Every structure is written in structure tokens, then in C-alpha cells.
């Protein structure tokens, strides 16, 4: 057996434990039912902004099967509104968000009344017969409208719509721009998106008055966070609340938040003392799931004659929607969009101002990459603009500006980023070779002469993964940023790992099992994983900010070491040797004289059933728990480089993706089979952002494309094959060395398509600033450039 296979780490093992999903034996939240289960359909606000004058429910209550119609005033008696104003966020202000509208509604689709019935169909019938009396109020939807001097307030408790204002870097960077050889400047517009999990959000809540316990099954990333949220909002002890995330059909950050409608469902169960189920339908997903990415930005970059960056000066205006998402707020994306500009490069002087604006639209929140895709897209296009101004090849331009690590004597970049060793040079080298960059450039030049517009785009990124407590604690958030592993040796010699990490398909649980199996030299099937259940797992985070392996894997590795040390000490006593002379191989203890005859099953049986057989009379603990949170660093930075090859049809404005390459450094790769497709999936979401996806609202705040036929996500036929390669620089923050990877594809994907499109359009003189780059927008840019000539 080779060392690689023996260690478990690095082997491309299939997820055998997930086979049941391919056989239709998943157990998602809508697959769960309970005796006496009631179903909820919500009546939702029809206007972007309105004042609720009255609710008539008599007709709805007549519908056979309808049990109750519950409004916001009734729920307010037992359930507090979300207050999402974390201390320590400068100038942040968000209105309280009740589970159901009490008097003022602030976005179309906000839940107003819960119709509770014996079946979902009856609940929907009842919902159609609830009559709402409204005063429509003026709505503010676009960022520009929200900024206007005389803008109507999104929520009447505020006089304006500014929700956040912050600056990263220096107050004044103008000196860097004086006398620079080249100064380039550009505006950017990023379309509002939403995560579109294929399984919509959903919840089953059961307040049992007999036990005074609340049990919640929810399609969610962070059950521990939700336990605290439900306990706090309903005035319960957290210990009386159990939250379980069963199989989850995609999450992408969207299922990181607490939603008003889901809180309402829990509160309804508390009120009625009956189990209730609420499954979000697709239209509700579009109008009431967290949105993301809507932003406008302008950026200036100064470079010297050799192409070295002298300064960056940027302003980002982000569209927050009607409320800050609970409990983490909506500011994270805007903050990272500004702070991460220029992150892969030594940028000289740095200034990035960020403003967040309330709008009468769905609240914005976390979506894969959180702001970093925006920062990457801005940075990479600025680099391209500067490289054209300085007449330097874009790949070379990147290389000469890459940051390798922090400058000596500094604790953070000017933007406040703490990055450890980066490997962007090595990633770029591998990437250029894999794509045969030089040959593609020659081909591009030859085809341009024939009027064929192909573009080659590069996007380098630095990503903050495995974010630790240093971000959330100072904000006053009750969010545990550690990940924990409770490892148990069962009497039969098998292992159980209860982890705080949750898995929505990333394969993290399989990879942790693989890691643990490797530590004892057993097959992964010998490790039973338990996750996503506050009743059965140790306290910790869950899934966000690419933390599963980086933090949860490290906790598991440490738990293995402790359990193993105890067992080896016991075995050493039995074998009368030093514990250092022993090791596990295929579950058996190997000593100085080879196989000892002692294996996990024998040691477990001894400890559990015959402790008196221990030479010392003592047995080691059969359950150990380890928790890990990055302490020396605030997060574990990863990096990589993407490249896109595409062709634009200048007559139609369509974009055809011809090739995609990525070289990523996520440190130690535990399972490349899982990591590679994880990267590809993230990239496809980045391509979706670049070319197709946008939440479209009318001027008066009506969502206009709320079906999967109208909000277009990438389909197999349009996607290219994606080449994935790795550079591995294990992080020094952990013994395992893994960095996060779940978001890396999305962080770079958008920027790479943007720079490739920009490159393709160079002969036309056109630039498309507004994303997604639909055929209409591409064509309009080409025609505008023709008119300008």
C-alpha cells in the first residue's frame, strides 16, 4: 500500500455514502412528515411598498381544511421581529423585520398572513380568499433612485436610504495618480442575482406542548445558528430547541440566513401546538429568497510606464433591499466587494469607499463568494484596461504586480487584508501552459484579421476562506465560527464522527470520513458521519465561507490524534513497548515486531467491556472532542487564476464559450474528485452571473422574471468543458493544510468571462459595463462604439 493511499488524504475516492441520493433515497425536508402535520401557504404583499390597513379572513376560513389564518399582529404577541443592526458596523441601520407584516410592507413578496390548513392545496385555496386592504406607498427600487436627494424612504422610519457607509484604505490617494504614466477609469454595473437552489427553502416545525420542546427540520446550512435565532425570537431556552438539517438540495449561502417566513412557520407551530410544514414554491423563492450582487462601482487605477500599479481608487454602491438579512446583515457583500479590490496585487495607494442603499426589493444576503466575485471582476478588468494603456501583455501585467505575501513588517494590506503565502505566479505559469496561451494569442490575431472576434480573459483571485471568530464576535453576532469534531470509538471498533460541519452536497462529510479513516488506516466505510443536528453534534458553525475541510477537517484530524494517542498508550502497556513505536495500519496496531494482533475492535471491546484487562486499570476516553477556529489568522486565504476563451458574434451579440481553465491553490487536497467538480460547479455559477442571471424588477418594484424559464441559469448545452489543475501550498495555520475551495470557482468565474469579453471586443472599441452580458447589451455596446467613430 502506498503512503498516499494509506494516509487517506489525496485519494480520489467516490462518495459511496451518497449513493442513496442517486437511487432516489435522499431525505429532504419535504420528504419528512409527522402525524397531525399542518401546512402553511402565505399571503404576500402585492406592492413594493405599502401600508396594510386591514385583513379579511372570513372567506378563507370557510375553505374546507383551513384551520387558521394568522396575521402579523397575532404573531407579534409571541414572536419578536428580527433586529439586524450588529454593533460595530459603521453607520449601519435596518428596520426591524417582523415574521409577518404588521403595518408597513417594504418589498413585493413580503409575507403578510399565514393560512394554515390540513393540506397545502387547501392552504393555497384559503390564501386566495384572504383580502388585504392596502395603501400603496412610493417605492424606491434602483440604486440611483435610492441615492436621489429627494428619494422617498424605503421604510418610513428612516428619512433617507443610506444603510452603510465605510472606507477602506487611505482618505486621499490623489498623489499616486499625479504624474502616473497611465490612469485608467471605468464604471461597472452588477445585476441582482439569487442563488436558485434546486430544492427551494423549506421547514417543518413542531412545538410540542407536552415536552415544551421545539423541533425544527430545515433545509439549511447552519442549524446551531438557527437554534439560537428561534430561541431568541420566541423567548425560549436554546436548550429546548433542536434544529436538524436533513439532506439539503443546494444552499450556496442562500440557506445561511434566517427568513421571516420560516420564523413565521415556527411561530405558528408554537401558537397552535401542532407540527407545521412550509415549503417555498419557485415564485416565492424568486421574490423572497436572499438576493445578492446588485452593485454599481467606479474605479480608477494608476500605473507607471512599466505597468506597476501605483494606486487604486474605487467607490462601490450596493443595493441592500428592504431589510438587512438576519442575523449576519447584508453588508458583508458590499464590504468584501470594496475591500477585496486589488487583493491579488501590490497596488500602491489604496482607497475604496462603500455605500449600502436600502431599496424596496427583496433583502440581499450571502451568495457564494460574497462580494469577492465583484471585487475580482472590477480588479481584473482594471488590470486589462491598464495593460492596454501601457501596451503590456495582460498575463505579464498580472505577473509583475502579483502579491506573494505581506510586505515585511506589515500586519495587513492597506485594505486591511491579512494574507499568508500566495502562489499566484505558480498558478499562472501552470495555467498559461495548460491553455497554450501563446498559441491562442496567435490564433486570435489571425482570426481578428478575418473579422472573427475571440477573446482571452484572465482572472486572478485571492479568497478569504475558513473565516474565524474575529469577524463575527466583534459584530455582536451569536455565530460560532469554530468547527468541532466529536469522535467516538464504538464497542465494535467502528468510528463515529459527529461534526458541526454541514454538507449540502460539497462532499465535506465524505472527505472528513476519508481523512479519519486515513488516520487509522481503515476504509472510509468504517467511519459513520453524523452532522446537521443540534441534538447530536458538537457546537460549531456549519457551512459558509468555505470552511468544511479547512476548519472541520482540522478539528477531525486533532480528534483523531487524541483518540489514537490514548489507544496507542493502552496498547503500549499491553505490548510492553513505547507508544511511539506503535502505529495503526488497516485498523491494526503495528509494533516493532510487526502486526500486534491488537486492532480497533479488540481495543474497543477491552475498553468498553473489560477495562480490568488494562495493565494500568485505566482506559482512555472512547469519545474525544476537538474544536478548531483560526486564531493566528483571521481567515485562511486561498488563491488561483482562471482563464476563458470565447467568441463574440458581433451581428447577434451572443457569446460562445470555447474553453475554460483554472489553476487553484486550496492547499492540501483531501479528495481531488470532490474538489475538481466543486470548482467546476462554482465556475458555472460564475458563468451564469456573467452571461444570464438577473433578477429583473419593474420601476415600481414588481419582480418580472420569477420563473426558471425567465431567470435563466446555465444549462449543460452552453457550458464548456473546464480544465482544473492545482498548485498546493498547505496553509501554516493548521496541521492539515487545507484551504477553502467551495467558492473559488464563483469568485474568479465572473471576472474571467468579463475580461475575455472585453478582450474580444477590443477591435470594435466597445466595452460592456453592465452584467449580465446579454446579447442585447453586447450588441448595444458594439453599436454605440460604431456610432462614436
Amino acid at each position: 500500500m502506498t503512503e498516499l493511499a494509506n494516509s487517506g488524504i489525496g485519494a480520489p475516492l467516490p462518495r459511496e455514502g451518497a449513493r442513496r441520493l442517486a437511487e432516489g433515497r435522499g431525505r429532504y425536508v419535504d420528504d419528512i412528515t409527522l402525524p397531525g402535520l399542518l401546512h402553511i401557504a402565505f399571503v404576500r404583499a402585492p406592492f413594493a411598498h405599502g401600508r396594510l390597513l386591514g385583513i379579511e379572513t372570513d372567506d378563507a376560513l370557510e375553505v374546507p381544511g383551513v384551520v387558521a389564518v394568522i396575521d402579523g399582529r397575532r404573531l407579534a404577541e409571541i414572536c419578536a421581529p428580527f433586529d439586524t443592526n450588529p454593533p460595530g458596523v459603521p453607520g449601519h441601520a435596518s428596520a426591524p423585520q417582523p415574521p409577518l407584516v404588521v403595518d408597513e410592507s417594504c418589498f413585493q413578496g413580503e409575507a403578510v398572513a399565514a393560512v394554515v390548513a390540513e393540506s397545502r392545496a387547501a392552504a393555497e385555496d384559503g390564501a386566495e380568499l384572504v383580502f388585504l386592504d392596502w395603501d400603496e406607498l412610493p417605492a424606491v427600487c434602483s440604486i440611483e433612485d435610492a441615492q436621489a436627494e429627494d428619494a422617498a424612504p424605503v421604510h418610513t422610519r428612516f428619512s433617507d436610504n443610506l444603510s452603510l457607509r465605510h472606507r477602506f484604505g487611505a482618505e486621499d490617494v490623489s498623489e499616486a495618480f499625479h504624474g502616473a504614466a497611465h490612469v485608467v477609469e471605468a464604471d461597472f454595473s452588477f445585476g441582482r442575482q439569487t442563488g436558485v437552489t434546486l430544492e427551494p427553502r423549506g421547514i417543518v416545525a413542531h412545538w410540542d406542548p407536552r415536552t415544551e420542546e421545539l423541533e425544527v427540520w430545515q433545509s439549511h446550512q447552519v442549524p446551531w445558528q438557527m437554534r439560537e435565532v428561534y430561541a431568541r425570537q420566541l423567548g425560549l431556552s436554546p436548550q429546548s430547541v433542536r434544529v436538524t438539517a436533513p439532506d439539503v438540495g443546494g444552499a450556496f449561502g442562500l440557506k445561511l440566513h434566517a427568513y421571516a417566513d420560516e420564523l413565521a412557520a415556527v411561530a405558528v407551530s408554537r401558537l397552535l401546538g401542532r407540527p407545521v410544514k412550509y415549503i417555498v414554491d419557485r415564485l416565492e423563492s424568486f421574490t423572497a429568497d436572499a438576493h445578492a450582487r446588485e452593485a454599481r462601482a467606479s474605479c480608477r487605477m494608476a500605473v507607471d510606464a512599466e505597468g506597476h500599479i501605483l494606486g487604486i481608487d474605487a467607490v462601490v454602491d450596493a443595493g441592500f433591499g428592504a431589510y438587512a438579512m438576519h442575523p449576519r446583515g447584508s453588508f458583508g457583500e458590499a464590504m468584501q466587494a470594496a475591500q477585496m479590490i486589488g487583493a491579488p496585487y501590490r497596488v500602491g495607494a489604496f482607497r475604496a469607499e462603500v455605500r449600502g442603499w436600502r431599496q424596496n426589493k427583496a433583502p440581499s444576503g450571502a451568495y457564494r463568494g460574497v462580494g469577492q466575485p465583484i471585487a475580482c471582476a472590477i480588479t481584473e478588468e482594471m488590470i486589462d484596461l491598464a495593460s492596454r494603456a501601457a501596451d503590456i501583455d495582460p498575463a505579464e501585467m498580472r505577473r509583475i504586480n502579483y502579491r506573494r505575501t505581506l510586505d515585511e513588517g506589515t500586519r495587513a494590506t492597506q485594505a486591511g487584508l491579512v494574507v499568508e503565502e500566495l502562489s499566484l505566479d505558480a498558478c499562472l505559469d501552470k495555467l498559461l501552459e495548460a491553455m497554450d496561451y501563446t498559441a491562442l494569442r496567435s490564433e486570435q490575431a489571425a482570426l481578428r484579421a478575418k473579422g472573427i472576434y475571440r477573446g482571452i480573459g484572465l482572472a486572478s483571485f485571492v479568497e478569504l476562506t475558513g473565516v474565524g471568530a474575529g469577524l463575527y464576535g466583534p459584530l455582536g453576532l451569536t455565530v460560532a465560527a469554530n468547527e468541532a469534531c466529536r469522535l467516538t470509538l464504538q464497542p465494535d471498533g467502528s468510528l463515529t464522527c459527529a461534526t458541526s460541519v454541514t454538507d449540502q452536497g460539497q462532499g465535506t462529510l465524505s472527505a472528513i470520513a476519508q481523512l479519519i479513516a486515513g488516520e487509522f488506516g481503515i476504509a472510509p466505510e468504517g467511519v459513520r458521519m453524523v452532522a446537521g443536528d443540534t441534538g447530536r453534534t458538537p457546537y460549531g458553525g456549519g457551512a459558509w465561507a468555505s470552511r468544511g475541510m479547512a476548519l472541520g477537517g482540522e478539528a477531525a484530524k486533532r480528534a483523531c490524534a487524541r483518540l489514537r494517542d490514548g489507544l496507542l498508550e493502552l496498547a503500549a502497556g499491553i505490548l510492553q513497548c513505547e507508544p511511539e513505536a506503535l502505529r495503526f495500519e488497516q485498523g491494526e496496531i503495528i509494533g516493532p515486531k510487526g502486526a500486534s494482533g491488537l486492532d480497533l475492535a479488540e481495543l474497543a471491546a477491552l475498553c468498553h467491556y473489560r477495562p480490568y484487562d488494562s495493565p494500568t486499570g485505566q482506559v482512555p476516553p472512547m469519545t474525544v472532542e476537538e474544536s478548531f477556529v483560526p486564531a493566528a489568522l483571521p481567515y485562511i486565504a486561498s488563491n488561483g487564476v482562471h482563464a476563458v476563451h470565447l467568441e463574440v458574434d458581433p451581428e447577434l451579440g451572443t457569446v460562445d464559450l470555447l474553453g475554460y481553465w483554472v489553476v487553484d491553490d486550496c492547499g492540501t487536497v483531501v479528495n481531488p474528485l470532490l474538489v475538481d467538480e466543486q470548482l467546476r460547479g462554482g465556475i458555472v455559477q460564475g458563468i451564469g452571473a456573467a452571461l444570464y442571471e438577473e433578477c429583473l424588477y419593474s420601476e415600481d418594484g414588481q419582480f418580472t422574471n420569477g420563473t426558471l424559464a425567465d431567470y435563466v441559469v446555465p444549462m449543460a448545452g452552453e457550458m464548456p468543458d473546464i480544465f482544473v489543475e492545482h498548485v498546493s501550498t498547505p496553509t501554516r495555520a493548521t496541521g492539515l493544510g487545507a484551504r477553502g475551495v467551495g467558492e473559488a470557482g464563483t469568485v474568479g468565474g465572473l471576472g474571467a468571462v468579463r475580461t475575455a469579453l472585453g478582450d474580444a471586443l477590443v477591435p470594435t472599441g466597445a466595452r460592456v459595463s453592465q452584467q449580465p452580458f446579454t446579447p442585447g447589451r453586447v450588441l448595444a455596446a458594439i453599436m454605440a462604439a460604431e456610432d462614436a467613430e
Partner: protein
Amino acid sequence: MPDDLIRFTLNGRRIAVPSTRGHLGDLLRHELGETGTHIGCEHGVCGACNVVMDGRVTRSCLTLAVQVDGAEIETIEHAGNDRCGAALQDAFVARNAFQCGYCTPGMIMTARELLSENAAPGRAEIRDAISGNLCRCTGYQAIVEAISDAAEALRETADD
């Protein structure tokens, strides 16, 4: 349906259920407990709810429950009973061609229909065939490779 029952064959079993106004997906999931068929959009775009109805892949969310009276329905729970379905499931696991697994049942039903009509589809043909099935997790590439692998495995064992 003179007695107001819907009678059909589900995965080889004869079924008679009281008539309902719901769609086939809800009938399978909530009345008959076959929860492998997933509901993603309820407007016929995502393909997560694909089942086989009288030999053709069909959107169960766009099919009324009463429409299946007299029909033969097959769902993912039964798909592994034939060589093709089993080969696809093996290949999907081996290639890590699914992550959250929500689209996978519908994807496999579609892929099985493709392979029943085309024993050696090219990558572009596979991509085209599954373009009515949305996957939000993978980059589709592993799915294409899994279907291609399954086709190859089936060709190799065709004469066994």
C-alpha cells in the same frame, strides 16, 4: 374512472388511489411515499421531477394525477432494476456526478432515455440531451462523463 379511483401501474405494482386534483409529482411523493421524484419548479423547466410514463420521460409536475389513469409509471426508485439505470447510478457515484442530489433522479431518468435510443452518444449529444435538466451544483462535466462511462459500460457488457 367510474368509481373515482385513479388506477395505474407504479414501478410494476398496481395502484388504485382516490382521484385527486393534484399533479403526478405530488401524488407520487405525498400519497404514495415515493419521495425520490423531486419538485424543483412546478413549471416544467428544471426536470427534477422527471418520471417515465408509458415509456417516455415526462415532467410529473406538468402531468395531472388523473392523467395517469391506465398508464405505466416508473420512478427513480425503480430505475436501478434494469442494466441501464444501474449502470448510470454506478457511474454517477464513480464520477461524483452529483452533489446535493436533488436533480439527480430526474437527470438519471433523462439519461436512461438517451442511452436507450443512442448507445454511443457523443459529449455534445449528451449535453444537448440533458439540457432540460438543471443542475445547480456540478459544472455538468462530471454528469457528461458519467453518462458517457455508463454508455461504454453497457456496450461492453451488451452481449453478456
